[in-house]
């Protein structure tokens, strides 16, 4: 019941039902909250699992490998398990592995980042996948950003609004949803076999070109949205000063649209860095024990190595896979961080 007097011109047939409406609003808000919590919990579960497996408590023996004494992890327990049951695990170690030392063993360590992969988990490193991924993503970003932005500018600023334009728009949006393996097959035909002279075959360059194709639809869609968001009044002001179309776009539209375009680029790069199937198709290998000598050399990438470790029977390789995931996520976060910094610097308010 309302605490205020009813307005005297109100007809009696208004049924306010204020409390029912408010309740409905509350339910809606709680559903949204539940969705958010679900998302956060899923992410949390992923991080919990991965971190628990990459930073472990382990029973560590020693063995000789190629003339040197190296650790040999015979059993691992997740980080979280060991926090609460340290004594219990210590006892188990002493019982089952009398030769072993019980200690904290982090699979993400400096050796992991500098060593090449090995059949011995404790000596295995992430070096070639890490370098390969960084090279592929670096070249992809350098290529896809200008191409995607240029295409978006052309479609938005210079394109006609006819039916051709609509067909192009629909197709670009659809391309963003094409399974990535298709890009791999395309890349194999065009970049590895067709343009083999330019790329050198199954190389970083072929991989980067393929990933560029994959990223372009996402960047173009995001860039077009950002360009559209620039108010027409800005364009009109520039044109009214006797500026050409290009001068208006370059000096006013593009700088204002830049934060949105960067967001699209980072989203595309985040997807590209996790792609496995298309890169395997174009010939990325799994075990590479040397640094690529340049962009025209053989390579491997992080997701491929992670998947390979996950499928091996020895349990400690699964810990390595988690360590690889931790590194991959760190790089993703860094990339996002850089994009956010660039966004802040170039952001303008109306």
């Amino acid at each position, binding site marked *: 019941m309302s605490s205020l007097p009813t307005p005297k011109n109100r007809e009696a047939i208004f049924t306010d039902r204020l409390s029912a409406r408010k309740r409905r609003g509350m339910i809606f808000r709680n559903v949204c909250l539940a969705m958010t919590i679900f998302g956060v919990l899923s992410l949390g579960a992923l991080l919990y699992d991965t971190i628990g497996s990459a930073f472990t408590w382990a029973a560590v023996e020693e063995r000789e490998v190629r003339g040197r004494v190296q650790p040999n992890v015979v059993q691992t327990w997740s980080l979280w398990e060991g926090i609460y049951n340290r004594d219990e695990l210590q006892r188990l170690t002493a019982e089952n592995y009398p030769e072993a030392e019980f200690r904290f063993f982090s699979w993400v360590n400096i050796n992991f980042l500098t060593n090449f992969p090995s059949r011995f988990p404790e000596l295995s490193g992430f070096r070639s996948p890490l370098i390969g991924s960084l090279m592929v993503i670096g070249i992809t970003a350098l290529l896809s950003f200008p191409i995607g932005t240029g295409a978006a500018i052309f479609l938005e600023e210079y394109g006609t609004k006819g039916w051709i334009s609509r067909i192009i728009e629909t197709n670009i949006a659809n391309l963003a949803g094409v399974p990535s393996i298709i890009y791999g097959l395309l890349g194999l035909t065009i970049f590895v076999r067709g343009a083999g002279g330019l790329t050198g075959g199954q190389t970083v360059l072929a991989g980067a070109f393929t990933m560029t194709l994959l990223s372009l639809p996402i960047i173009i869609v995001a860039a077009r949205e950002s360009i559209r968001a620039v108010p027409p009044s800005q364009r009109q002001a520039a044109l009214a000063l006797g500026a050409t179309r290009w001068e208006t776009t370059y000096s006013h539209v593009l700088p204002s649209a830049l934060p949105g375009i960067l967001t699209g680029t980072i989203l595309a790069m985040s997807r590209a860095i996790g792609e496995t199937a298309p890169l395997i198709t174009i010939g990325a290998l*799994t075990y590479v024990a040397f640094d690529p000598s340049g962009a025209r050399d053989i390579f491997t990438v992080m997701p491929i190595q992670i998947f390979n470790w996950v499928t091996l029977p020895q349990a400690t390789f699964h810990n390595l896979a988690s360590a690889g995931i931790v590194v991959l996520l760190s790089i993703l976060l860094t990339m996002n961080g850089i994009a956010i910094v660039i966004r802040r610097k170039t952001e303008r308010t109306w």
Partner: protein
Amino acid sequence: MPAGSERGQSAFSSMPRLRVIRNTGAVWIGMLFLAACAGIVSPENPDPVYDDLSGRFIIDGSSTVYPISQAMAEEFGYLTSDVQIPVGVSGSGGGFTKFCAGETAITDASRPIKPIEAELCEANNIEFIEIPVALDGLSVLINPANDWVECMTVEQLETMWEPTAEGVITNWNQIDPSFPDQPLLLYGPGTDSGTYDYFTEVIVGEEGASRGDYTGSEDDNILIQGVAGNNSALGFFGYAYYEENQDRLKLVAVDGGDGCVEPTAETIANGEYQPLSRPIFIYINAEDAARPEVASFVNFYLEEADDIIPDVGYIPFMDNFYDAMIERFHDGRTGSVFLVTDVTAVSGTEGLLFPEEK
């Protein structure tokens, strides 16, 4: 690493009379060095000079053989400073496609080359040398809570897995009336894998013929989770996966006609565990085999097989088999035994030799 000459120089360089001996010794060692390079040293016992080797060649193919080839490439990489051997995991079939296109020097295969693949190689003028490198005992595994099965015959497995079993054989007591009334949950590799090809060949009798309603995956670890988590589940995987998960799975002995045999390193190696003891192969491009770094690597592979293969979870052949293989490689005997004898799966090492090698 010609250690002799270096040691000679450091210890003897100061004394004049011994300097003559040192110099003469160096000359002799140098000549031996040259002789080794020229191949005058007996090919049966080569002494490759690793330091001189350089180059790169690619290995690709089966994910089953990958751990062995990768281990070999790693160890060989430590002995040489300039040889690069990247290894891929495109699958047996994918590996042959690339191999017969001339893109790889060595292909890993968990099954013999198929006639159609051999034709493709021939069409591209590629000759290959077939070398079986190890044995994998395909193990039939059940959940530890399953106490009604200890041994199964090939016929029982066939009943379980043949194509006509799809939708029909869904309960354990259909395999044997003495088994309890429990749903039959099957796990196995996907239809793309060489493991699947081999299993269907020897159990069902025809490659690629199986029921479709089982849980398949390319990642054996997922299948292990499935079997370990279900009381009435059954699956087949490589022996290495059983070895690593013994506390979660129970082994089933297989009766191939001569009684129940459990897969162990011995029974697989000596051929007792039949018919699921399968050879896994590498195929080497005959042209690439002439390159010194490739030849050296393959020699190393076969010589170190005894030491490294058990490490990665497979079973090495008997020594004399590797000797025969080294000879086959040196002779450059191309072609596949399976195309010559028209048999597509064998048990025991007899079936892996060419007629003239026996």
